[in-house]
């Protein structure tokens, strides 16, 4: 990938679209600190990390979900969601062992946050179920809950609608809008379903072969000749 530059305004929903292999997921992994950057910079909240790692980026308030629901299969739903809080945890090992000090406080706060997020996503009744036994749709919700529990300022969603039917897609689209509005999270998402992308995005970045070919409002993207060409496979 080269020569890609775009910015996302605070409170916006930005979608990254493009044909298969265009580099969408790679871009997400770069923002997230998974892939090293050879040349270039990622600024998060005006902050620049010289050597970004997933952990340091996560601590800046960035959360993400995964295309294939990378959940912890042998852990309960509640435990899965609580791992989303670990990046902000300050308690040390001794405190964890004796259940004192910060470990005690954090455990107490974590419980409240957990109940809040469980009821927000309407998954209270499965909180003790092992994630591996859940259906795909529920796993998507747990993945989202794990990302949301830390109250991220930037939320990266990797194909949040993949594998869903029409009604589920609508619901998820509305959920994403609500997360953006009522929880104040800036959202960057990758998605193939154009209908919903056009509905919910504030602006769209189009990639093709590792290059940015458009970056505009949804309305203008729809009529951009280069984008149409990339999608229809014309030269």
């Amino acid at each position, binding site marked *: 990938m080269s020569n890609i530059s775009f910015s996302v305004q605070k409170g916006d929903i930005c979608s990254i679209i493009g044909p298969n292999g265009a580099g969408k997921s790679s871009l997400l992994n770069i923002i997230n600190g*998974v892939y090293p950057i050879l040349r270039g910079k990622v600024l998060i909240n005006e902050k620049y990390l010289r050597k970004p790692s997933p*952990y340091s980026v*996560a601590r800046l308030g960035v959360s993400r979900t995964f295309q294939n629901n990378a*959940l912890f299969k*042998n852990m309960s739903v509640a435990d899965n969601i609580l*791992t989303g*809080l*670990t990046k902000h945890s300050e308690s040390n090992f001794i405190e*964890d062992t*004796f259940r004192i000090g910060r470990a005690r406080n954090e455990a107490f706060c974590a419980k409240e946050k957990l109940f809040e997020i469980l009821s927000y996503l309407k998954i209270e009744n499965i909180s003790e179920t092992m994630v591996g036994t859940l259906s795909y749709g529920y796993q998507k919700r747990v993945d989202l809950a794990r990302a949301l529990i830390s109250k991220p300022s930037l939320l990266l969603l990797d194909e949040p609608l993949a594998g869903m039917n029409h009604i589920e897609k609508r619901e998820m689209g509305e959920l994403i809008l609500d997360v953006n509005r009522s929880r104040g999270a800036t959202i960057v998402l990758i998605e193939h379903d154009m209908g919903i992308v056009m509905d919910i995005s504030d602006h769209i970045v189009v990639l093709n072969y590792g290059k940015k070919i458009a970056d505009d409002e949804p309305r203008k993207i729809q009529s951009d000749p280069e984008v149409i060409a990339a999608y229809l496979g014309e030269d």
Partner: protein
Amino acid sequence: MKTGDKNLVAEFGRFKISERFIKTIYLFTILILLFFVIPLYTSEYWMRAIIMPTLILGLAGLGLNLLFGYAGQASLGTAAFMAVGAFVAFNLMYRIEWLPLPIAYLGGGVAAGLAGLLFGLPSLRIKGFYLIASTLTAQFLSIWFFTNFGWFYNYNPSLTISATNWVIFGIDFSSPKGRYWIVVFTTTVLTWFAYNIVHSKTGRNWMAVRDMDTAAAVIGVPVVRAKLSVFFVSSFICGIAGILWAFAYLGAIDATGFSLDKSFQLLFIIIIGGLGSIYGSYIGSAFIILTPILLNILTKNTGLDQIIDQAFLSNMQKVLFGALIIFLLIRQPEGVMRIISLWWIRLIKRQKSN
């Protein structure tokens, strides 16, 4: 409906029984049995030959279970870390006479923990079978080390080490009951610590690393710290268990007492008991220790030992023991603890539906 009501099992007028309440009662009963009833009202044989090794091996199994069952890091070096604990504690006791006994034990545990940390370093790069091979190094190295360097066993011609000190805060614990109490106390405290850690952020990080370490790293779990901390804690617990095994149970031991056989035995204990279960470690160790004794009693009482050759009989016991393990693992691959928890859930459900 309040969240507390979800646990409700039965109601007698104003007196309500929750699931948690029953579990607490069970726990207290077990603790009272272990601390008072067994040492004061049962025979010394039961206390010394059955309960004590069950607890100690259960504790070592718990150490391994944290590493393998909770954090997914396979290891065959468990006995090596037990050996480090025992030998270092012996030297601390022997060479620094004024050192209080608990400190010497703690020192042995920490030394074992550091050894675990050292042999855990490869886990940052490799997993599964390769990690087993790497921890196996610790196993062979420790036997060679504690046999060839005489300083560690104080040049004792029999190559063994034994406890030189049984005094804690001016009270002598050298009697069988005293030793037993040390074992029960240490086991209880360490199990409580392990319970706390497993249910804390650290424990969740361990399980996240076990289930999918790449995803764990991406969502902000400090993977390196999680892996190294589990190696330390696991080896610390194994080290303490090694000290208890050497001094409280056997009295004297040489390096070959902590051989690969012991590592395998501990691995079987947690597989039978249940991976990723604290109580499972103790149930597994009880199974391993009690079953041969039961088989022995069975052959004696049925009079089989009068008819059939003794050596053949003891071999048959081993075969039967192995077959029993295989049968158990086919019926329930997740271990005895899983069977118990399934019973428990069924019991609670039936009670709730009434």
